[in-house]
C-alpha cells in the first residue's frame, strides 16, 4: 500500500535545460509551431531564448523522479494511471536556461474506488534558475495505482 510516511521525501537534485531542438520536435508533434517557440529570431526579445509551450517542462518532472521511489511507495506499477497534472509558472521557462530541479513526494492518500482501493500519489518538482536560484516553475503530477488485493 502507498506509504504516507514518505510524504516530503526529496529526490536528489538534478539539472534540466530546454534545448531548442527538443522544443521544435515537441512543437511539431503537437502541431503548434508558432514562431515564438521555434524561430530564434522571432523569439528574441532581449532575453535568453525561445519560450516553451506550457506543458513542455513535463520532461523535467520525469527526469526528477527517482525510480526507487516508486518501489518504496509500494505502488502497483502495472496499474498506474496519470490522473492529474499541474504547472505553475512564476515567469516563463525559456530555451537555454539551466534549472536546478528538486523533486519530492507531495502527498499520498487512498480512496475507495468501485473495483477496489486506489492509492493516490502526487509528485512535485520545482525548477530554480541555476545562477539566480530564482524559482521559475512548480510541476505536480498525480498518479492513481490500483491496490493489489492479497
Amino acid at each position, binding site marked *: 500500500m502507498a506509504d504516507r510516511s514518505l510524504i516530503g521525501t526529496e529526490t536528489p537534485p538534478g539539472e534540466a535545460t530546454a534545448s531548442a531542438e527538443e522544443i521544435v*520536435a*515537441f512543437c511539431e508533434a503537437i502541431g*503548434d509551431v508558432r514562431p515564438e517557440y521555434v524561430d530564434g529570431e522571432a523569439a528574441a526579445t532581449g532575453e535568453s531564448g525561445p519560450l516553451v509551450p*506550457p506543458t513542455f517542462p513535463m*520532461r523535467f518532472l520525469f527526469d526528477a523522479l527517482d525510480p526507487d521511489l516508486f518501489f518504496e511507495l509500494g505502488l502497483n506499477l502495472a496499474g498506474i494511471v496519470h490522473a492529474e*497534472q499541474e504547472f505553475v509558472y512564476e515567469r516563463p521557462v525559456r530555451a537555454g536556461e539551466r534549472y536546478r530541479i528538486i523533486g519530492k513526494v507531495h502527498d499520498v492518500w487512498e480512496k475507495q474506488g468501485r473495483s477496489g482501493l486506489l492509492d493516490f500519489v502526487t509528485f512535485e518538482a520545482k525548477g530554480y534558475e541555476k545562477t539566480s536560484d530564482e524559482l521559475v516553475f512548480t510541476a505536480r503530477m498525480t498518479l492513481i495505482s490500483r491496490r493489489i488485493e492479497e
Partner: protein
Amino acid sequence: MAGRTDWNAIGEGHTFEAWERSDLSIELFQAYGEASGDGNPMHTDEEFAQDLGYPTVFAQGMLIMAFAAKYVTDIAGVGNTRRIWAKFAKQTWPGETVRFTATLKRKYEEGSKTLADLEIRGTSTEGEEKIVSEATVICTQQ
C-alpha cells in the same frame, strides 16, 4: 505577445470560440511519446496495449493537455499562462476528435497585472469528456 482576446471587452461567464483537434493516430502518439520523453508503450505499442486489455493504444493524457495548453495560449498569448491544471477523464482513442471550449470564470487584479481564471473542457465529438482543465492567464491587451 498577446493572444487574440480583447480582455477589456469581455466579462465573467464569457465563452471563448471552440477549437477542434482531429487526426489523432497511433503515429501521432508515437511522435509525441518520442518528442516529449514519455516512453510508456501503453500509448505507442498496440500489442502492449492489447496485452493490458485495451482495444488499442490511447493518447497520452499529456498530449491532450498539450492541446488544451495550445488552446489557452491562442486565447491569452505566448508566455501568459501562469498556471495550468488538468484532470484526465476518459481515454482518447485514434480517430477521435477532441473539441475544446473555455469559459472565463474570474477576472481580477494582482499587483500591476490583470489575471483571468479560465475553465476549459475537452470533449469528443461524440460527447465524451476527455479532459477538464483550469488555467490562470495574464491579460495582455491586443
